[in-house]
C-alpha cells in the first residue's frame, strides 16, 4: 500500500505509484518492488528499472474491517498479496469483487483508482489497485 499523505513524496514517486515501476537485477535475474538502487536479494547495483504489464495473480488475501482513517468508506477492504507476471510481489487493495468470490490464483490487473481524497478542498491522490481481469462473455 505504502501510501503516505505527503504531496511531495507522492509526486516524486508517481512513476512507482501510477505505473508500477520496478527493479530488475541483471546479476541474479530477480525483480522487486518498489524499485531501489541495490538488489534486495544479492546486493548487486547492476539494476535496471522497468514498468510492469500490470497483470498478476492473487497469492494470498485478507478482508480488513478495521480500516485506517481515510479508508473507512472502503470498508470492508480486501488486501491481497499479488504476484506480478514479471515475478515481483506487492501488497495492494483488490476492488470490484466480493471477498467470497476471490480465490488464490485469481487473475487480476492493475487499475488506477483514487487512494485518498484530502478533505473537501485538498488533493485527490491516485494509485494502483487490482481488479479481476475482465473475461470474455
Amino acid at each position, binding site marked *: 500500500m505504502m501510501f503516505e499523505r505527503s504531496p511531495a513524496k507522492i509526486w516524486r514517486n*508517481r512513476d512507482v505509484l*501510477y*505505473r508500477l515501476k520496478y527493479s530488475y537485477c541483471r546479476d541474479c535475474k530477480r525483480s522487486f518492488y518498489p524499485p531501489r538502487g541495490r538488489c534486495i536479494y544479492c546486493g548487486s547495483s547492476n539494476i535496471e528499472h522497468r*514498468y510492469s504489464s*500490470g497483470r498478476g495473480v492473487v497469492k494470498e488475501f485478507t478482508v480488513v474491517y478495521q480500516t485506517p*482513517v481515510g479508508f*473507512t*468508506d*472502503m470498508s470492508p477492504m480486501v488486501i491481497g498479496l499479488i504476484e506480478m507476471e514479471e515475478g515481483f510481489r506487492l501488497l495492494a487493495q483488490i*476492488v*470490484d469483487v*466480493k471477498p467470497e468470490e476471490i480465490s488464490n490464483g485469481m487473475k487480476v490487473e492493475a*487499475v*488506477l*483508482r*483514487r*487512494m485518498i481524497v484530502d*478533505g*473537501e478542498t485538498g488533493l*485527490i491522490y*491516485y494509485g494502483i*489497485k487490482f481488479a479481476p481481469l*475482465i*473475461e*470474455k*462473455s
Partner: protein
Amino acid sequence: MTKIKAGVTGWGSYIPPYRIKASDIASLWGFDPYTPKAIWIEEKAVAALDEDTITIGWRASKYALQRAGVKPEEIGAVFVGTESKPYSVKPSATVIADALGISPKKLASDLEFACRAASEAIRISISLVNTEMAKYTLVVGADTAQASPGDVLEFTASSGGVALVIGGLDNAAAVIEDSYTYVTDTPDFWRRSLAPYPEHGEAFTGEPAYFNHIINAVKGLFEEGGYKPNDFDYAVFHQPNGKFPLQVGAKLGFPKEKILPGLVTPYIGNTYNGSALMGFAKILEEAKPGSRILLAPFGSGAGSDAYAIVVTDHVLEKRDKAPKVVDMINRKIYIDYARYAKMREKILRYRR
C-alpha cells in the same frame, strides 16, 4: 468532400460493473412504474467510490493504446472530454497522461461541451494529425454523470468512458472519411459552477436541441459528402435514453436494424461523453471490414457532429487486444439504491 487523412488507430472503453435497476429508482421516488420503459432504460452503470472521470478515462485509454499498438511516447496530445471533472481547476488529461507514461512533449487539456466535448476533441485531433503537429492523439470521453436524486435524469445519468487513439491512415482500424459540425446556443441543459446537479429546460430538450442539431449535422454531412442513408451499414447517435436514437434515426431514414447494434444506453445508462462513442466502440468490435458507420454525438448547449467512418481490415487484428464493450455490459454487480447513494456520495454525513 473534405480532405481528411486520419483514422482511429485504437479504441478502448470502460464500464464499471456496478448496476442499479431503473425499476428500483422508479419505486424509491414514486414514479409511474412504466416510466423506465417509456424512455427505454433498464439499468445503469455506477462508478465505485474510488472511481472518477480520471480513473475511468485512464482504463479506457490503456485499452485504446493496447489496440493501437502505439507507444505512449508517440502520443502528441491528450484531450479529455467530460462534464464531471474531478477538479474544477487542474487538468484530468495530465494525470491520465502521466499515469500512462505519455511524454511531457504533448498538448493536454480537458474540454467541456456537455456530452459532446470528446467529439470536438476528435475534430481537433484530425487537424493536428493532418498538419503533422502530432503523430497520434488520445481522445478520452468519460463521465461520472450527476443527477439530482429523484430527477428523471437519475434513471440514465451513469458512469463510463471511451478512448480513441487518432492517427494517420496507416494501421487505422477505421478511416474517418468526412465530418460536419452544427453548433448553436440552445439552453436545453446546464449546470452552474458549484451547483452539484444539472438543470434541464424541459421545452428545449427534445426537438430544438437533440433532434434539430443531430438532424442538421447529419444532413450537412450528407450534402457535403454526397451520402445517403443507404451508404451506411450502421448509425450511432448520442443516446440520452433508448428511445431518442431510434426516433432521430427514423427521421433521417435509418431502419432500427442499423441503430440497435450501437445502442447501449438501455443496458448501461447514458455515459455522457462516452455515450455515442461507446456504441461506436461496440460496432468496431462487431462490424465487417468495409462497413461504413455514421457517428453523430450530441452535446447540450447545443451541438452535434456527424462523421462518416469506414472500418478497415486492421480492425480484425486489434479487436481481441483488450476487453470488449459487450464483455463489460454483461459483467454486472447489482446494487440497491442505498449502496448507490453511498457510492455516488448522496448521503449527508461527517467525513472521516
